[in-house]
Each structure stands twice: as structure tokens, then as C-alpha cells.
């Protein structure tokens, strides 16, 4: 197991290097505006632009720039400086990461629990009104775009512009202090972000559970005289939930790169908004920084999921 984890970590390093190279290439191949020009202000003189180019190191060859970047990253854990405001990308990213983590983990708890519960209810009452209402609702939740759902929920429930003043509105997260106060402002974003995921998880769990319940070992469990409740919750769900856990890990990893839409609608200063702004401004170092966080999170979560899988399914050994 230890050897396996070590190998995976090594691969993760290689993967991250490849990703930085690919982003570098994409950034230079696809014209997104010259960062030096963007930075130089209105009607800059060619000298100013050249000076900025030199300052940012943009005048040097592509491999040289990449080498510098990697050197700083590996030796100093330095993500470079933002092209737009001279701030260290490391501090930009790591200032915002806790906000994204808070948003994503809270939502993940909500969507996982509600998805699993809805899936179980739906599967055990297959074909009934319950099943149809829940699966119909799931379809709506999957189809509704996050920004639309976010805006509608703000319009209905936020305490500033809402029809019913129930939850704190957009932007309140920045002003709140303390864990509970921040959590309170996140209720609406959590629900909005969790909605589609909960629906997908509910459908996934439902179909897994229905399949599991026709397995031979479920028949065996029933023939042992176990209560149906125990058969479903202990034996059925145990099998049906395993693939869902895999998906959960990867989803959390991906969202660590920023829940862009939710963060934007609710004005939460997370990694997603940082990445979004950086892309708009052609801010390569910041794009690199946010992408690395995303890639690292995905790689770590998938490693975590694989390790977890060995505990969930005794047949899996590394």
C-alpha cells in the first residue's frame, strides 16, 4: 500500500509538470492579449511596453520563461507574481482557497447526504408517487443552470432584495466574521451548488441500489430472515454507495479549482473567481496558480478515493 501511494505521488508530480507546460503552451499559442500591453495603461509608448516586457520576463524565449517558472516553483514553492497587480500568486490563491474549501465541503455534505437519502427512498419505493416526484424533482435540479438557480434563489430568499427575507444575500460572506456567521451566509450558496449534484447523486444511487437489490447476495440476506430495512441499509446501500464515493471525491477535487458560477453569483471571493478574472486579464501566473491548485486537488482526491476504495471493497488490493 505504501509503495502504491508513493508511486501515485510521484506520478502526480509528473502530471503537474505536464500541466504547467500545457498551460504555458496554450497561453502563448492562443492569443489572449499581450499582458504587457494590458498592464501598460492607455496609449502607452512602445518603450513602456518594452520595459514592462522586460520586467515581467516576457522578452525572453518560451523555454527560458518556462524554466524560470518551474525553478521558482520547485525550489521556492513560488508561483510567480500576478501580471496585473504585482501580488504574489501564492498569496492570491491561498488567501482564497479557504473560502472555496468552505463553500465546496459544506455543499458536498449537503448533496451527498440528500442525494443518498433521496436515492434510497426512490429505489425502495420504485414506481410509486414518491419515486416519481423525487426523480422528477431531480431532473429539474439537474436541468437548472447554477447561475439561474442562484439568481432566482437570491430573488426569492435573500434578506436584501428577496421576496422573503430569509437568508443573507450576495456579498454577505465577505462581511461576516467567525465560523458560524460565515456558515450562515453560505446556506444559500451551499443549497444552490448542492442542488444539481444532489440530483445526480440521487439518480446514481437509485440505479445502483436497484441493481444491487437484484443481486444474489441480497436474496441470500432475505432468506436468512433479516428485516427488509437491514437488507437495504446495511447490505444494499453498502454496495450501491461505493461507486458514488468515487464520484464524490473527484467532484470535490474539481470544485477545489473554483465553483466559478456559484462564487460569482453570490460574490464569494474564491479560487474560481480568481481564475475567472485572471483568464479575462491574460494573467498567466495567476492562471497557472489556480490551475495547479485544481490539478493538485483532483490528483489528491483521486488518490484518496483509490485508497478509500481498498477499505470499502475488500477485493481491491494495491
Amino acid at each position, binding site marked *: 500500500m505504501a509503495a502504491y501511494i508513493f508511486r501515485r505521488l510521484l506520478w502526480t508530480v509528473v502530471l503537474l509538470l505536464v500541466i504547467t507546460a500545457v498551460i504555458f503552451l496554450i497561453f502563448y499559442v492562443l492569443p489572449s492579449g499581450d499582458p504587457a500591453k494590458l498592464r501598460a495603461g492607455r496609449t502607452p509608448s512602445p518603450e513602456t511596453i518594452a520595459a514592462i516586457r522586460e520586467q515581467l520576463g516576457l522578452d525572453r524565449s518560451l523555454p527560458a520563461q518556462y524554466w524560470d517558472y518551474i525553478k521558482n516553483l520547485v525550489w521556492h514553492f513560488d508561483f510567480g507574481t500576478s501580471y496585473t497587480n504585482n501580488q504574489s500568486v501564492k498569496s492570491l490563491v491561498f488567501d482564497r482557497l479557504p473560502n472555496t474549501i468552505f463553500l465546496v465541503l459544506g455543499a458536498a455534505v449537503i448533496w451527498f447526504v440528500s442525494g443518498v437519502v433521496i436515492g434510497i427512498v426512490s429505489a425502495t419505493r420504485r414506481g410509486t408517487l414518491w419515486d416519481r416526484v423525487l426523480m422528477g424533482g431531480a431532473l429539474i435540479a439537474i436541468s437548472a443552470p447554477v447561475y439561474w438557480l442562484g439568481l432566482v434563489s437570491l430573488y426569492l430568499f435573500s434578506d436584501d432584495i428577496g421576496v422573503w427575507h430569509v437568508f443573507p444575500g450576495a456579498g454577505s460572506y465577505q462581511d461576516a466574521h467567525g465560523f458560524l456567521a460565515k456558515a450562515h451566509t453560505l446556506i444559500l450558496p451551499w443549497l444552490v451548488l448542492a442542488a444539481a449534484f444532489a440530483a445526480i447523486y440521487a439518480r446514481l444511487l437509485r440505479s445502483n441500489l436497484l441493481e444491487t437489490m437484484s*443481486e*444474489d*447476495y441480497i*436474496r*441470500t*440476506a*432475505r*432468506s*436468512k*430472515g*433479516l*428485516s*427488509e430495512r*437491514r437488507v437495504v441499509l446495511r*447490505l444494499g446501500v*453498502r*454496495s450501491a454507495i*461505493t461507486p458514488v464515493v468515487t464520484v464524490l471525491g473527484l467532484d470535490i477535487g474539481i470544485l477545489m479549482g473554483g465553483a466559478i458560477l456559484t462564487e460569482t453569483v453570490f460574490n464569494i471571493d474564491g479560487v474560481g473567481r480568481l481564475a475567472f478574472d485572471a483568464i479575462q486579464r491574460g494573467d498567466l501566473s495567476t492562471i497557472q496558480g489556480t490551475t495547479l491548485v485544481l490539478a493538485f486537488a483532483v490528483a489528491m482526491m483521486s488518490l484518496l478515493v483509490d485508497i478509500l476504495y481498498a477499505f*470499502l*471493497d*475488500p*477485493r481491491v488490493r494495491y
Partner: protein
Amino acid sequence: MAQPLLEVKDLKVHFETEDGLVQAVDGISYSVDRGQALGIVGESGSGKSVSSMTVMGLTRAGNAKISGSITFDGKDLLNANASEMRNVRGSEIAMIFQDPLSSLHPFYKIGDQLIEAHRSHNDVSKAKARDRAVEMLGLVGIPDPRRRIDGYPHEFSGGMRQRVMIAMALINDPKLLIADEPTTALDVTVQAQILTLIQKLQSELDTAVVMITHDLGVVAEVTEEIAVMYAGRIVEYGKVDTIFSAPEHPYTWGLLKSIPRLDTPRDQELVPIYGRPPSLINKPSGCSFHPRCPYVREAHKKVDPGLEPTGSADAGHKVACLLPGETRRSLWAALRAGETPDAAIEEVPIPETTLSPSAEGHTGEEVTGP
């Protein structure tokens, strides 16, 4: 005579589907005494598994219509409620299944699964249940049970898993064990071991056994009586010896003649039963077996035979066939001598209509020859 342990009377299990009514089990009756072993033989789709799942109360489909009666140890199982049924399942009636590879939960240690079976019916401590599980694993021949109890199912071979299943089924000392094709998924050498084990445990623990199989060889090993099922009905019933030495139903003949045997000449070909098992939605008129029967006569397509005593030395021997008893016995004599069905027909004249009165009563229509 004492009441039988399990008495099934005129059991019908029908499923309403979009394509029509599936008559999976269509009026079967049998009984099993304490400590006795009954074999139910038939091909897939003959209703043998459905009937035993119904005895367990596990026919769960919402579209199932069940009628008749199932009496177990004085209890009416068909009208028992869910919790009464749960107390019977796994405690008084236990079951083992065809595929031991998929019948154990892959994520739980076998010990946990055995302990769960024991504790769901007995108010005992975990440690006690574990001791019992170890004892049972030893009894079914798992070597080093104290260590193996912490193994997962995938760490056991198919035969060993079936032993675990048997240990789990017998852990609560059931009065009846239903074995649904317990050896079908196993290697031949392992099959024999499992059958010997079942037989040994049956006599040691005095458990009654219902052995469901498509393999006459399997029931011959273990059981005392055999019910041959075809298309949801029992078509022949009798002691093992009778079924093997003096069978009277053409379907049973077909089953027997399709088994490879060491004591027949090497050049003698096996005789398959031609055709396919009938659809249980649109059953053939008259005798269900008539489309596949080499000895069919016009009248057989109209009259539905009832299960009647043959009058042979085995008082319990019954058959549902419209051929006259004399003819049946002559045909079997010819077949047993190694003749093909075609040759047997040449030799034995088959009369067009000879109907027992009860068979006529079965359909209520009068049949005369052409």
C-alpha cells in the same frame, strides 16, 4: 400418520405481465416429512425455483398472484404476515442457492455474515454467535475455521463458498433446508463433495431437504422421493428407485435417456428431448408436453391429464400422462433396452384414445377418436 413437515397443496403462482398471464407454477402439491428428502427435478422455466421461493415467502414481485396453501409445521405460510414469515426464514426453513460465488456479500467477512444469520434469530452475544459460526464452519469441512472465519468470500473457492452457504443455512438448526441447484455452478468433483456433505448433515441433524435441480443424478444421490416438474406442474412423482427403474412419463424418459451413463454401450447415442420448454403464457392445450412428446396422439392435444396413481408397487407413484399404463410400461421397456423412441413406437402400438375418467373430468370435454 403424523402431519408432514411441509405440505404444499394446489399451489399456483401466476404473474400478470404485459404479454399475458405467466403461469409459472400451476397447481402443484407435495409434502415433505421431518428428516425426509425430496427432489424436485425439471428444466429451467418449469417453475421449480419459483415454487420454492414462494415457500420461503420471497416471491416479491408485485404482479404475483399466489393461491393454494402452504403449511409448514402447522403454520399457514401463505397467510403469514411479514414478521411471522421473517421468523420462519433462516430459522426454521433455510435455503442455499445455485451460485455460491454471488450469493455471499463481497464486502463482508464470512464470519460476519454467519454471525448476522445467527443473531437475527437468537438473542446471543457476538462472541457466542462467533463460536457457533466457527463450529458450523468446522462441521461443513472448512479447514482451520478459527482463522478462515475472518476471510472474505473472494478468498474462498466456489466449493468452499457453497460450504459456507450451507453452514450459514444450518446455523439456526432449521427443520427444512431448500437447496436450489446447489451444485450446478461447481466442478464435478466438488459437486460430489457438496452432495455428500448435504446428505451427511441431513442424517446427522435430521433436517428435511428439498433439493431442486435439473440433474436427476443429483437427486438420486441425496433424496428419497422425486417430483418431476414440467411447465409449472408435477408430471411424475415417486420414490427414487421407481423413477429410475420404472418411470412412466415420456418427459422423465427423456430426462433419463439424455444422461450419459458409463454402463451403456459406447456407440449408443444420447437421446435429447426435442423442442423447447413451452411458453408459460400460452401453454399448449391438453397435455403440456404434447408438442415435444414422440408418443402423442390427437386426443392428447385436447385433454389435460391429472396426476394419477400408477398402481405400481410404489404406492406413492403418480404420473400425469394420457397413455394407457400398459403402453407406458411397454414403451419404457423398449427404451430401456436401448431403442430409440422411433423404434419403440414401431414396436409398441399406441392406441388413439384411452382416457381415464378423471382426466376427462379435468377438462370437462368429451373426446372421441377419429
